[in-house]
């Protein structure tokens, strides 16, 4: 029931907001309240969760289209719990940021944000392939609108780009799902056996690679992340991209052991290329969002390395890193939004600088999140990166050497970004009127930072409680 509740609460909340006769401000506060309730329900779920068991828990099944063997089947594995957790936390931060920033057309805006929350949670808990597909599409539709209506000046181009890319991915995935389900005689993921079809595997991989994103299918990234409003970019990079990685983890890898084995080298190459390519472009990016965006591409590549390391080090590290990056990326995009609001810029480094002086809260937050994002040892991102690279090292030393080199590149691009905003001469767009972070903004960012610092003290909370079941197709991850 709790799993279904996690989907139902935000969806019901969205409907409530759509009809409630309230002013914009109160609609926003209602949405914020619902997103906090959602976190509370997740904490309840986590408290009742049996982490010693690797099987599906909190599941609920109801027949839907029985002649097609389609069912409403939701439930959570240990790793799913973390996916849901990061989603509800990040979505709450983004929703509250939208409230704080006072988005216009509040009714539609907050309804869409809550609908999005429900859909993403659905993606991570669906145990039926068609249900998964339905949630995946339901996740994209609010995003089209959120980008197209509340985006920046060039938002139409951003929306079209995003739509074209995602539609291609979705069609591929739909085709693969239908063929795979008909072959298996069921769409229930817990009952499906493995397949050795290369084409099905590739269909899934391409669909998920567009979403993650992976080189060279990241073409929608630059324009979309720059033109969306800050909190939508945060959702896209922090959470929606993870749906692609989740798809690799939950579908492409366990159901296709033979193709995974055959294509492993190619996937590792794509992962490392994304990692290095993203890091290098982040080093050259002229604006704050550019750095965060390309570093997301790099992180996505790193996580793919972990997933295709085919051992428990890589898998547990990848789950940990997915959670880390969701929090880091959300915090960084929201901070980017806060910087842009104060300076009236779009985050161009040439216009910024010297913001640390007289703004200790802003400096502390940017510095802390930035340092964690570049995976300084002892941070939780370091823990994730360490496990992933230790895992992929067992596939061959070269992958880990590439990963090691990218650790240096990460230091280069992140320190450059931090300095360009905070240090050196005061930039032309930074006036005395650009205030330090306000209490409202701190209330959004500080909880994210607290999560990250807490995880840094105890990353094992996630990595030690993430393993996949050892049955059937999951065997590659078995310890």
């Amino acid at each position, binding site marked *: 029931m709790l799993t279904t509740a996690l989907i139902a609460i935000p969806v019901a909340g969205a409907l409530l907001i759509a009809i409630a006769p309230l002013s914009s401000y109160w609609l926003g506060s209602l949405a914020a309240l619902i997103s906090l309730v959602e976190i509370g329900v997740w904490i309840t779920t986590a408290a009742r969760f049996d982490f010693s068991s690797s099987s599906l828990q909190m599941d609920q099944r109801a027949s839907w289209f029985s002649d097609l063997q389609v069912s409403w089947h939701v439930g959570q594995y240990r790793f799913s719990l973390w996916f849901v957790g990061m989603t509800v936390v990040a979505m709450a931060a983004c929703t509250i940021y939208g409230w704080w920033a006072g988005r216009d057309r509040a009714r539609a805006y907050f309804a869409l944000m809550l609908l999005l929350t429900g859909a993403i949670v659905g993606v991570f808990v669906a145990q039926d392939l068609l249900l998964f597909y339905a949630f995946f599409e339901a996740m994209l539709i609010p995003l089209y609108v959120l980008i197209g209506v509340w985006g920046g000046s060039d938002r139409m*181009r951003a929306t*079209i780009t995003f739509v*074209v*890319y995602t539609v291609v991915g979705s069609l591929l995935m739909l085709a693969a799902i239908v063929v795979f389900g008909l072959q298996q005689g069921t769409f229930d993921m817990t009952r499906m056996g493995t397949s050795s079809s290369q084409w099905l595997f590739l269909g899934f991989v*391409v669909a998920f690679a567009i979403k993650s994103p992976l080189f*060279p*299918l990241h*073409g929608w990234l*630059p*324009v979309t992340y720059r033109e969306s409003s800050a909190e939508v970019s945060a959702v896209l990079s922090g959470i929606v991209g993870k749906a692609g990685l989740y798809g690799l983890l939950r579908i492409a890898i366990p159901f296709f052991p033979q193709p995974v084995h055959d*294509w492993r*080298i*190619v996937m590792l190459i*794509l992962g490392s290329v994304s990692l290095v*390519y993203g890091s*290098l*472009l982040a*080093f*050259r990016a002229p604006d704050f969002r550019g750095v965060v965006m390309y570093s997301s591409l790099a992180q996505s590549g790193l996580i793919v390395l972990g997933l295709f390391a085919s*051992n*428990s*080090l890589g898998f*547990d590290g990848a789950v940990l890193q997915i959670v880390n990056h969701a929090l880091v990326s959300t915090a960084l995009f929201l901070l980017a939004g806060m910087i842009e609001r104060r300076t009236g810029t779009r985050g161009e480094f040439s216009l910024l600088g*010297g913001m*640390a*002086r007289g703004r*200790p809260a802003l400096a*502390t937050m940017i510095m802390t999140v930035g*340092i964690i994002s570049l995976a*300084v*040892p*002892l941070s939780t991102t370091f*823990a994730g990166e*360490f*496990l992933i*690279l*230790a*895992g992929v*090292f*067992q596939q061959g*030393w070269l992958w*880990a*050497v590439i990963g*090691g080199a990218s*650790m*240096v*590149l990460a*230091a*280069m691009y992140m*320190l450059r970004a931090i*300095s360009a905003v905070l*240090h050196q*001469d005061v930039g032309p767009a930074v006036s005395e009127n650009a205030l330090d972070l306000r209490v409202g903004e701190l209330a959004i960012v500080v909880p994210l930072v607290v999560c990250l610092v807490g995880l840094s003290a*105890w*990353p*094992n909370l996630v*990595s*030690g409680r993430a*393993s996949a079941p050892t049955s059937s197709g999951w065997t590659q991850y078995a*310890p």
Partner: protein
Amino acid sequence: MAAAPWICLLLPLASAVAITAAGTAIPRRVAGYISTVTTMGAFAAAVVAFVDMAGKSASHRSDATTSWTWLSAGPYHFGLTLLTDQLSIVMMLIVTGVSSLIIAYSIGYMDGEDEERRFFAYMSVFVFSMLLLVQGGNLLLLLAGWGMVGLSSYLLIGYYQERESAIQAAKKAFVMNAFGDATMALALFLLIQHTGKLDYAGVFAASPHGGAVANLIALGLLGGALAKSAQIPLHTWLPDAMEGPTPVSALIHAATMVTAGVYLIARCHPLFENAYVIADLAAGLGAATLLMAGLIALVQTDIKRVIAYSTMSQIGYMFVGAGLGTYPNAMFHLMTHAFFKALLFLAAGIAIHAVVGEQDIRKLAGVGKLMPFTKWVFLVGSLALVGIFPFAGFFSKDAIISAALDRGWYGDVIYVACLAGAFLTGVYAFRLFFIVFTGEPSAFAREHFHAHHGQEGPISMRWTVGVLGALSVVGGLIQFAPVWHLLSTWLAPVAAPIAEPTNTQEWITSGLAILIGLAGIGVAWAIYGAKRVRVPRSLTLFEKKFYWDELYDLLWYRTSDLVARGLYALVEAPLIGGSITAVTGVVGLGSRELSVAQNGLVRSYALALAGGLAVLAVVFLAVR
């Protein structure tokens, strides 16, 4: 007393958190008091742990306590473990002791800076990180501490945030150390693969003896050590790090953090003994560094940079000692060096503080006449640095040099290099002393010198320097290689030396080293003290610091920059469709009908996407 190591570790962290959380609610000076008191508390905890340990028999002194599993995956578990043994307790005492003095000194030095709180919070973070490094009970925590000291170093070098050069220096230090972290991480991956563990005892028992794997493991660790300890070829960040406030230079870039590489080799000595080629490489790089740094120090004109190169050179000696396997003597030199080098920096800091922050020795010339106390403590530090009996450096440095005689022709070469280094040390140390502290004050020094309430500096700066001066005199007495060996005996169960020079070799080396050091002082006196000999023309090679900066600029920064620009221009923009103009440009190239593409946004993107898919398809087909 099992709690003492934890208290020692966590007190500085608590201080950093308290100062940050309190923010402007506490006066600036109180931040300094909080930081000092907690660090002294950590020192007290280390002393308690030491007394407790000394009361046990030698075989029961090692104690590992785990609080919780920090990280695990599948069958691998890495705990948050503190290992308190003979080696770590020595480091804990040095780190907390010297940190207490230097942070207390900072109360006076940093007085009046408008962001003192930030400074003291960072200093406390540093002490915590350094303690984590030396107390960590497995290699993963060592690496965590390793990265955290790098982070604190970055924050403190860049403390003066609006100064471009400081920010650049901070970034350079961080990136170069990130490289070291990466090679260490690779060594850890190898260890996980071959031993399945990362705790010291387990790793030492199971790691391979000899062969490529053992060499690569040692090489990876050495990479981290070279970066952190500023040895060739990863040394160029240290002189630039002098952009930080002087107490930072004294604490991080002289007394503690930069010597971490020596601790690493001593701690992981079984891994280096399994790979003697790499151990020899460490000794060789140490010898090369001590010569090169000594030569560059001869021509530097910034008082802190001279001392920084001297630090590089002295750590070179420690690397020689650690690489050759005389770990207790390397640790001994680490300790005495912490005393006299902190003394030199802090004494220099008093002079800089009194002359409005000036660091150029030509402008500081003769300031010693105005500040006799500083002059005498600086002399003590310089004598200890050169290794003149009975000052601390004499006891520790000579023991390292004589160990080289136990190692065939390779050792002989290193032996000669070390003696030549002793000569250079005499020259550059006393060049500095004679220029700055003897003779008539320069016009600049006279004009800008201002006494602090009739004293040379605030009380907090003088008593701490006095204590370090005393330690630089008597600190070496705990061990005199030919006669008594307190430290070696204490460390024997965890880091027994594998190089054992005879007593005759020790006596001869001590005699030679003193004579050579005195010769160096004599040369410096003739040129800079008595001015009987004209100052020789300095070599461009030395002034350009052997062109390392230019080399790295070309090899790494420019290359990354070029590749990144190239990727953007040749791949990202046209192929991936990052910008609409580029996409339309590509389409327009063939047809010259830009309007077609402009009217067909969707088509352009479909094309870009199809292009991406096509690339992918080709990759898939080609690689299979």
